[in-house]
């Protein structure tokens, strides 16, 4: 049985809710005001529901209260970046568009500075290597040389030359067939690297966007790890705080019990003292009256 059947007001429940949330027009409100004067049941229920609303207002979960804008902006950036990656295939991404700038810029800004420096150094090293790769196989073994001074003599390192030498095995007179193969490999590598450096901007973009996807994946994983670590630390901290709180609580309970016991002791002692005094007083009164 709903309240509608208990009260004659038309659509009473809806009217009550509308009144409660102040979504009645003037006429309807006035009519319901008049009804409230006459109907105690509606008056009581309105008061109770207003109380419920007040209590609902106290529902401020910590998860909502502590949801800080700093975390929001971090997520916002991640969301936008994720969306950009999804929406724009690398091949369809115009280099001059704002999306391209956003795509390249936003993830890079999130990389820690030390990682940016490391990446820059790595790029520099690779670039230096690509600039002048020299693969050689002679009596000293297999040598892979990288350096800027292309004209310098092999085997005579010069200042500014960066070299990395891997000795595989001493070369003998029978090394000649390898030499031809290595020379071919060297030519192939040089051709590829040169074509790579002289490629058109579109091609460069296509290549450069490829790693950015993997970088995005990497960043995503790193972020997940960091989040997990933060959660773990938070849990541990919460556990510690919880333990401390439990200790404080149990100590407090024990103290309260002691206080109660002490109070009982004092009260019982007081009662005894009062009884003794009463006894003494009675004795004195009886003695006095007998002496009279």
């Amino acid at each position: 049985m709903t309240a509608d059947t208990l009260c004659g007001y038309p659509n009473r429940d809806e009217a009550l809710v509308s009144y409660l949330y102040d979504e009645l027009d003037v006429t309807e409100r006035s009519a319901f005001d008049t009804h409230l004067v006459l109907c105690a049941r509606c008056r009581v229920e309105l008061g109770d529901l207003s109380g419920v609303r007040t209590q609902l207002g106290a529902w401020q979960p910590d998860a909502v209260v502590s949801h800080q804008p700093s975390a929001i902006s971090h997520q916002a950036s991640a969301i936008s970046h994720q969306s950009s990656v999804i929406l724009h295939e690398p091949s369809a991404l115009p280099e001059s568009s704002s999306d391209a700038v956003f795509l390249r810029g936003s993830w890079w800004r999130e990389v820690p500075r030390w990682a940016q420096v490391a990446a820059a150094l790595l790029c520099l090293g690779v670039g230096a290597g690509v600039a002048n790769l020299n693969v050689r196989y002679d009596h000293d073994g297999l040598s892979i040389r990288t350096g800027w001074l292309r004209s310098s003599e092999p085997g005579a390192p010069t200042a500014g030359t960066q070299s990395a030498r891997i000795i595989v095995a001493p070369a003998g007179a029978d090394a000649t067939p390898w030499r031809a193969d290595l020379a071919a490999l060297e030519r192939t590598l040089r051709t590829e690297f040169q074509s790579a450096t002289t490629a058109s901007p579109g091609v460069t973009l296509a290549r450069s966007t490829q790693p950015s996807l993997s970088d995005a994946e990497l960043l995503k994983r790193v972020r997940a790890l960091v989040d997990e670590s933060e959660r773990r630390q938070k849990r541990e901290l919460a556990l510690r705080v919880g333990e401390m709180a439990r200790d404080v609580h149990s100590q407090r309970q024990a103290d309260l019990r002691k206080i109660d016991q002490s109070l009982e002791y004092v009260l019982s002692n007081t009662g005894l003292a009062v009884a003794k005094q009463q006894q003494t007083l009675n004795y004195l009164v009886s003695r006095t009256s007998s002496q009279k």
Partner: protein
Amino acid sequence: MTWTDEELVARSIRGDNESFNELILRWERPIYALAYRTIGREEDARDVCQETFLRAFRALPGFRGQAKFSSWLYRIALNLCRDWVRRERRTPVVQPPEDVDLMDLAAAAEPSEAIEDLVARKDMTRVVERAMALLPEDQRTAIVLKEYHGLTFQEIADLVGCPLSTVKTRLYQGLTVLRRELARTGSTTPFGHR
């Protein structure tokens, strides 16, 4: 200069991602609060919130301004919450771990707030959370949208796709359940002044 939502949407559609970031910053907290109060789990609410903006971003070119941006966003979030509830196939329960309470309390505490008031507020929050968790999804959604997001009956009706009278009925029924439940637990007045 502060742009309106509609202006930011227009700029976002033209490719200005910073404008969309601004929309996220503006609406992320309400959407998160809606998701949290609807599904009751912090992590899942965060996922729903993120997914809401992701979907909004994807669908932005198709947004023609037939509704307010916020209403459109709320609808996406509510649909995701509904999907979540169906997927989980259980009534959402808001039960923060016991050990977290005091830390969260300390974090949320105003410096001037007495510990008694703090504990009372926390108790009240827990009682309301448990009562809300008892409500059917449609009633809970109506109450959350009305109480915590200040939507009108008509806006709620448009969002959830039901008649105006249904929204009022859901609110009435939900509040009645809460009234009974809160009375049963003895929480008759806020902030523990019982």
